[in-house]
C-alpha cells in the first residue's frame, strides 16, 4: 500500500528538518528576504493602512465576484479576446490542450503560474506531444530537475549554485564551466530565446484581473512574462476566479504591496497590463488572446462563513517566508501545490479535508503568518478552524477520540486527574529508571524519541501549590 499524504509528510518533514545543509540554504535565503522585506516596508509610510486598503479592495472584489468577473469578461470579449470558464482542472487543461492541437502548436513557452501547477497543465500538454518550456529562471531549473516549485515566488531557493551548474552541465551543455549566477542566467537566456521565438503559444498566469479595464495584470522581474505575452501568435492566460479586482487604480496600492511582500522591491520590474490580442496598427503582439478562469473548488470557499477571506490571497509568499515550520521542513515536504501556511489552509478546501487535514497541525499557531499577510488573512485561526472541521467530520482515529474522552472526564473530576498524574509520575519514573526512555515501552516516546526526557517533578503541581510554589 502506498503511504498516505500524511505519512509522507511526516517522513519528509523528519528528514528535511534533520538535513543541516538544507536548513543552512533556507536560512541564508530567508535572511536576505527578511532584510529586503523590512527595508521595503520602511519605504511605505503607513504599512498598516496599506494592508487595510488591500484587504478592503479584495473584500469588495470577492463580495461581488460574479459582477466583476462578468465585467472583465465583457471587456475582454469586446476586444476580440476569449474567456473560458473552467469548473475544474480537467476542463481547464482540456481547453488549452484542444486549442493547442487545433492551432497546430508544437512548442509552448510558459511564464510562472501557480494555477497551471495546481491543474497540472504542463504534463497534460507534454502528453499531447507539445513541448512546454518553463521560462522563469527558477521554474526552468526545477523543470530540468523534474520537480515542482519549492516556493511560490522563488521556485529554486533550495538549490545552491554549484548544484545548478552541475544540472546545466548534465542536461543542457557539457561546456558549462562556472557557477556564477550571471553566467548561468546567460546559458538559460540563450536556450530560452530560441524557445520564445519558435513557440506558437505563450502561457501565463495573472496576478490580478482588472474588472473595469478588462485587463490582465502580470508582474515579472525577468521579462520572461513579457516575451511570453508578446512574441508567440497565441497568448493563453490561466488563472483563478479570485484574482479579480474592481478598478485599475487599485493597483496603485496592490502593486507596491505585492512587490514589498514578495521580494522587498518597491514595485516589480515589469508590471504589465494586457487587455486583448494585438490591435490593427500595433507593431506586434499575439493574434489570439484567451483567458481561462479556473474555479476548481474556489466557489465553494465563498460559501464558508468563516474562511471566505482565504480567497483574498495575492500569492506573495510572505507567510511561507516567516513560518518557522516552513523554514525547517521546506516547501516540497508539504506535498501540495501551495506550501506554507496559505497552502495548509487552502489545500484541504481544494483537494479534500480528509487527505490533507494533517497540514492544519503543521503549525505552532504562533500567528506570524497572519501578522505579515498583506491582505490580513487570519491564517492561523483558519488552521484552527480546519482542525475543528476535520474533528467534527469524524476524521479522527478512534484511539484519539477515546483519549480525549478520558481527558474530558479527568478535567471534570479532580480526583481522577490527580490519580492520573500520580500514575503517570510513577510509571515514567520506573520507565526512565529502567532506561526505557524513547523506546516502544515509553508512554512519552513521541516526545522522547528525539529529545532528552524532561526531568520528573518530585510532587504534583497541586501538592506544590498547597505548600506555596517556592517550597519545592
Amino acid at each position, binding site marked *: 500500500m502506498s503511504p498516505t499524504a500524511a505519512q509522507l509528510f511526516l517522513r519528509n518533514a523528519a528528514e528535511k528538518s534533520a538535513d543541516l545543509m538544507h536548513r543552512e540554504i533556507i536560512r541564508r535565503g530567508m535572511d536576505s528576504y527578511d532584510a529586503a522585506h523590512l527595508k521595503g516596508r520602511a519605504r511605505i509610510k503607513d504599512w498598516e493602512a496599506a494592508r487595510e486598503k488591500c484587504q478592503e479592495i479584495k473584500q469588495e472584489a470577492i463580495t461581488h465576484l460574479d459582477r466583476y468577473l462578468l465585467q472583465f469578461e465583457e471587456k475582454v470579449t469586446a476586444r476580440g479576446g476569449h474567456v473560458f470558464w473552467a469548473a475544474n482542472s480537467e476542463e481547464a487543461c482540456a481547453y488549452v490542450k484542444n486549442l493547442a492541437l487545433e492551432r497546430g502548436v508544437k512548442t509552448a513557452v510558459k511564464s510562472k503560474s501557480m494555477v497551471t501547477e495546481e491543474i497540472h497543465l504542463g504534463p497534460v500538454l507534454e502528453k499531447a506531444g507539445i513541448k512546454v518550456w518553463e521560462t522563469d529562471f527558477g521554474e526552468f531549473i526545477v523543470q530540468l530537475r523534474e520537480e515542482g516549485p519549492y516556493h511560490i515566488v522563488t521556485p529554486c531557493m533550495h538549490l545552491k549554485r554549484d548544484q545548478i551548474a552541475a544540472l546545466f552541465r548534465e542536461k543542457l551543455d557539457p561546456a558549462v564551466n562556472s557557477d556564477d549566477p550571471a553566467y548561468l*542566467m546567460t546559458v538559460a537566456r540563450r536556450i530560452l530565446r530560441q524557445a520564445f521565438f519558435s513557440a506558437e503559444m505563450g502561457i501565463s498566469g495573472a496576478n490580478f484581473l482588472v474588472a473595469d479595464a478588462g485587463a490582465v495584470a502580470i508582474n515579472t522581474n525577468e521579462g520572461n512574462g513579457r516575451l511570453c505575452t508578446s512574441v508567440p501568435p497565441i497568448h493563453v492566460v490561466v488563472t483563478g476566479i479570485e484574482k479579480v479586482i474592481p478598478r485599475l487604480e487599485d493597483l496603485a496600492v496592490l502593486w507596491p504591496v505585492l512587490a514589498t511582500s514578495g*521580494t522587498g522591491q518597491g514595485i516589480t520590474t515589469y508590471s504589465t497590463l494586457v487587455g486583448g490580442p494585438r490591435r490593427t496598427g500595433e507593431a506586434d503582439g499575439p493574434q489570439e488572446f484567451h483567458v481561462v478562469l479556473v474555479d476548481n473548488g474556489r466557489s465553494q470557499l465563498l460559501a464558508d462563513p468563516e474562511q471566505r477571506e482565504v480567497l483574498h490571497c495575492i500569492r506573495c509568499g510572505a507567510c511561507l517566508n516567516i513560518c518557522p515550520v516552513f523554514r525547517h521542513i521546506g516547501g516540497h515536504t508539504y506535498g501540495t501545490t501551495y506550501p506554507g501556511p496559505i497552502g495548509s489552509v487552502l489545500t484541504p478546501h481544494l483537494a479534500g479535508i480528509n487527505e490533507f487535514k494533517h497540514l492544519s497541525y503543521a503549525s505552532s499557531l504562533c500567528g506570524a503568518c497572519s501578522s505579515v499577510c498583506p491582505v490580513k488573512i487570519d491564517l492561523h485561526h483558519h488552521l484552527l478552524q480546519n482542525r475543528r472541521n476535520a474533528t467534527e467530520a469524524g476524521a479522527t482515529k478512534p484511539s484519539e477520540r477515546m483519549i480525549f474522552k478520558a481527558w474530558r472526564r479527568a478535567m471534570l473530576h479532580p480526583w481522577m486527574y490527580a490519580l492520573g498524574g500520580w500514575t503517570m509520575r510513577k510509571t515514567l519514573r520506573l520507565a526512565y529508571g529502567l532506561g526505557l526512555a524513547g523506546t516502544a515501552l515509553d508512554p512519552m516516546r513521541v516526545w522522547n524519541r528525539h529529545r532528552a526526557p524532561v526531568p520528573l517533578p518530585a510532587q504534583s503541581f497541586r501538592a506544590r501549590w498547597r505548600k506555596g510554589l517556592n517550597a519545592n
Partner: protein
Amino acid sequence: MQTEASSREQILARIRRGLRTAVLEPAPAKSVGVIFEPISNSLERFQQECVANLMECTLTADSAASAQQLAMILQSLPAGGIFVQDDPSLRRLIEAAAPARAVRWSSEGAPEESSQATVTLAEALIAQTGSILVTAACGGRGASVIAPCHIVYAKVGQLVPDLATALGRLSQQKILDHNSFACVISGSSRTADIEKILVQGAHGPRRLALILQATA
C-alpha cells in the same frame, strides 16, 4: 462550446449561491491612514528611484543634447541593427544622432531578435517608483523587452508624481481601449532566483537608458 456555456453558468450559480452565505468574518477596518509619503519634488524623487532601480537617467537641456546622448549610447553598443518607434520626434532624433546602423521602424513590424537596441517614447514617467509607463503605441510590445538595450526618449513634462495618478490617467483616458498592452517598467530585467543574488539582465534588456529632456 456546449460545455463552455454550462460550466460558465454553473460557476456563476455557485458563486451567487456562495455569496448568499452570511459571513462571520469581521468587516475590515476602513483604511484611513496616508499610505505613501506625498511627493513634493517629482524630478528629484524620480532620479533617486532611477538610481535604486539601476536605470540610467541622463538629463538633457534640449533636443540637440538628446541626440548627442543617443549617439553616445549607440556608439557604446556592439555592431548590429536597431529598432525605433516610428514617430516624427524620434525620426528627427535619429536623423540628428545619425547612427551608422541599420534602422528598423516600428511601422515595418516587430523588432528582430538580433536588434542591439530599441528606441521608444514613453506614455508617462512615474516619480514614486522611478518607472517608465509604455503602451503598445510606444513601438509595440517587444520594443521594450527584446533587445539587450532599451533607450527611452522622454520629456520632464511627462513626469507624474505617483502610480495612482498614472493609473488614473490610463483609466480616464481609456488608454487600454486603444492599446492592447501597457507596462510600468522600473529598471532593466533582472533575477535573483539563484541564492537570492541579483543578476541584472535576465530575459529582457540588461540596460535601460532614459534620455530625459528638460524642454518640450
